[in-house]
């Protein structure tokens, strides 16, 4: 598919969504696979509603994400009066503050003149108005818990819910089965509860990923979005990752980097061993790969620019399952390579973000047994779908054996829909794929 075709398909999808919004009784849900233009849709829908004379509230989940949307909306629509609703300790960052059409306030009265007001769900939940807004746009709606939606839903009459159903589900520190099977289970996602009560609300899917390269879209689509699927907006020739310096001989780290540049994937495989979660060897491998990538002057070619763009540290991420693993990688990067600005974080915190290259410490690496946490499809999906160019998986050998011996007995709760894709199947599919680009650690 050419990029022009992709644009046409995406445009048709967006037009269908906007058309459905125009005749919606209650709202529209849009499933957006990784990098499928979710923010573009949010910004465009907000602007079109505002142009039609409607006031719009935009509900995000984190300040970071709301600031992104605010600056994009402000940059694209200079004539629009935009409000940024923030909490007591919120100070607008430079990318928001520099726009003259954005006004930041701690409460709604000061934003009465604004046509579009953006804020986090937690902040909106403290607003005391009722049904003052004809339209809301709820972003990252699959990561929003339904009890939070309950607190903000009284503010609006209709809503556009946008989110990625393949990422991690919301969670709670409390374990209870008390509400399982209820259509309004407070621990399930906002979208699930909304659709339980409003089955007539149409569900759209954005069809193309602008982020994932041609090397990643098919495998991610098949493993994590089995029922809807999506394609890459770019072809194999549209993107390239290359280095300004040559590799040293047959060093495994360099081989993995070359493999990743050539195919978009690499599996940097350490010898099989059961280890602690903070497996030192794996941690050092993640750090070494990230540092070496920068050291060799990685640069990318893509539809974004005619000239190659350097891969800066902030365009590289190391993703882990656990916080202590992230801390260990961060420490290794700083201590052994003097690198501090590569993004190192857990899958939970990398949700919704985009990088050129992602190095993933495989959640099952070094483990003897898998748990539901480590097998969760959403966790692997986040880690495998943040990159524009390449993803390098760091893992100990032995994961196929672990998966093979995994007992498949999960409790089943009446009235709770089975979750797809199955974590086991998704892990198996991804591993089978990246194993084609296996690089044994030296």
């Amino acid at each position, binding site marked *: 598919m050419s990029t022009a075709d992709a644009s046409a398909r995406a445009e048709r999808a967006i037009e269908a969504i906007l058309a459905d919004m125009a005749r919606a009784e*209650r709202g529209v849900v849009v499933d957006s696979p990784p990098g499928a233009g979710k923010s573009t849709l949010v910004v465009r829908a907000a602007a079109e509603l505002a142009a039609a004379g409607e006031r719009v509230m935009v509900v995000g989940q984190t300040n970071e994400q709301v600031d992104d949307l605010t600056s994009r909306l402000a940059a694209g629509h200079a004539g629009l009066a935009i409000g940024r609703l923030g909490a007591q300790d919120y100070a607008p960052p430079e990318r928001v503050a520099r726009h003259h059409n954005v006004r930041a306030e701690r409460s709604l009265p000061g934003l009465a003149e604004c046509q579009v007001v953006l804020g986090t769900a937690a902040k909106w*939940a*403290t607003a005391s108005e*009722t049904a003052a807004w004809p339209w809301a746009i709820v972003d990252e709606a699959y990561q929003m818990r*339904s*009890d939070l*939606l*309950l*607190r903000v*839903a*009284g503010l609006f009459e209709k*809503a556009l819910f946008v989110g990625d159903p393949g990422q991690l589900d919301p969670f*709670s*520190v*409390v374990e*209870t089965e*008390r*509400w399982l099977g*209820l*259509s*309004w*289970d*407070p*621990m399930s996602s*906002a979208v699930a*509860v*909304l659709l*339980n*009560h*409003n089955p007539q609300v149409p569900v759209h899917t954005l069809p193309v990923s602008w982020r994932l390269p041609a090397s990643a879209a098919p495998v991610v689509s098949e493993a994590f979005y089995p029922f809807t699927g999506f394609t890459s907006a770019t072809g194999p020739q549209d993107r390239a990752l290359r280095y300004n310096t040559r590799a040293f001989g047959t060093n495994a780290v360099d081989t993995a980097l070359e493999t990743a540049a050539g195919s978009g994937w690499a599996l940097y495989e350490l010898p099989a061993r059961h280890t602690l979660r903070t497996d030192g060897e794996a941690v050092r491998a993640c750090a070494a790969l990230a540092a070496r990538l920068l050291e060799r002057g990685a640069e990318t070619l893509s539809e974004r620019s005619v000239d190659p763009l350097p891969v800066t540290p902030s365009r590289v991420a190391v993703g882990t399952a656990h916080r*202590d693993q992230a*801390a260990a990688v961060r420490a290794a990067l700083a201590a052994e390579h003097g690198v501090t600005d590569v993004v190192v974080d857990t899958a939970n915190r990398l949700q919704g973000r985009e990088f050129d290259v992602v190095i993933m410490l495989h959640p099952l690496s070094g483990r003897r047994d898998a748990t539901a946490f480590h097998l969760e499809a959403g966790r692997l999906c986040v880690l495998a779908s943040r990159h524009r160019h390449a993803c390098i998986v760091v893992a100990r050998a032995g994961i196929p054996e672990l998966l093979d011996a995994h007992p498949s007995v999960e409790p089943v709760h009446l009235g709770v829909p089975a979750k797809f894709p199955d974590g086991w199947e998704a892990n198996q599919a991804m591993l089978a794929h990246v194993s084609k680009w296996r690089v044994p650690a030296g």
Partner: protein
Amino acid sequence: MTLLTSLARVLAAETGRAQPIRAVRHVHLSQRPLVFIPLQLAGEACAPLAAMVGDDPGKPQMLTVYEPRDRTQRFDFAAGLADIVLGYIDGYTTADPAPDEPYPDAPQLLVPNGGGITFTRLLGRSTRFRRTEGEYAVKRTVPLLGRWLSFYAERTEAPASALLLPMTAVLADHWATGQSEAEDANLAALLGWIDPPDGMSGPQAARAAENPVCCPPAGPATDPSFDNEVLSARIGAIRAARAAGDGAALHRAQVAMKAALATQLEPTWKLMWRAVGLLRALPEGDHVSGRWKVDRWAFTSHVRWLRDGGAPQPRRDGAVAAARKLAVLEREAQRLEVQRAYDDPLVMAEYRLTGEAFAGTVTEADPARLDTSGRRAKLRPRIGVETGDEVLAQPGAKLTSPARPNQDALVIEVTRAGGRTRVLLELEKGMGRSLTPAPGSVPAVGERVTYTTLRDDFQQPPVFPAVEDTPWTHGGPPPAYVPADEDAVEEWS
């Protein structure tokens, strides 16, 4: 589980003796708890068979259902249990407190295990909707018992509540055994590891406890071979005597059945009180009484609700009620985690091991230090702490010390040398109002201190819509709940 607990398990396995993993008791333990051991008929959702109940180890009261499939006898059991439980509860409400105070103490129920909790919940569910007049009328106390049991069962979902406790979970929280968590669910085996009989090792006692002949299960499920070899014959004899209209034989058969069931209950009764004794020997954690006060308030509110003619709890929570309860549970869970670590050095050790806390000695202190960079001088003492623990905290992190929970400690600098770490902290709050710190409010040189990222910050409780304002995303306002006739006459068979 954590590495420290896992290490304690390994230690227990190697030494043949359970290892304490807590320095203090983290649950409230009443002076006279009500021990409740229910048994139910196999294959049924909630068919009571027998129960042993009481607050005096020497005087267990026993209830028996001679025909577990008979509806009337089940309600007789419920009425009998109501007499005991309601009588026990009434003992705590003899004098009413001031309107803004909770009762000074609250009744505490102890069951052997998680199954006991489920039984309590289901028995509450099957009795709370009953009517005391009209068709299928039951004794006045039955629906009242149902509301109480439902209340107690619901409180068990609050992680910090001690109103109704499953003994196995409480013991397993305080001791690590040399067996698996799955095996710890057996009360006799668990106690065998913690407090084996003379001349036996932990594993020997635990193995012996798995033999249902000498250690009957702690319920509510009975041992299948007891069912097949003893109970069925006893029930058969009762049915035969009743069919023959032989009163004397019926009485004999009933005595025999009660005796048979007593053999299944008495060992667990003894174990329960032994466990109470073991727990009582542990000193109580500092925050336990504060959490018990929350329980006392919950109890007090329920008493007042019932006195105002409170309707039975609905079958399931509505959208607003569910979200509201989840918010409370999450808040309590978070607070509990912090309090347990503050109360107990062994719990704090888990955080020290992962670098989320460190303990060390104050090596330098500048208690009078003023920050004069602003318009007004501010008291900002600094202390240096040296520790052998791993420190994950970075400059800028805000830490707290359990000894001074109201004081913030800002990490200024972390330096490492020779396996030791020096952390420079700047203190704020909790030192009085003047520009010189109140005595003892700044740690002195030589003092042992612990600092951690765990904090119990005040949080504004979330605001939820009123039930009648339930939004369209959650199904809109629900119809008002009226206990339905079908609830009251629901079969129990």
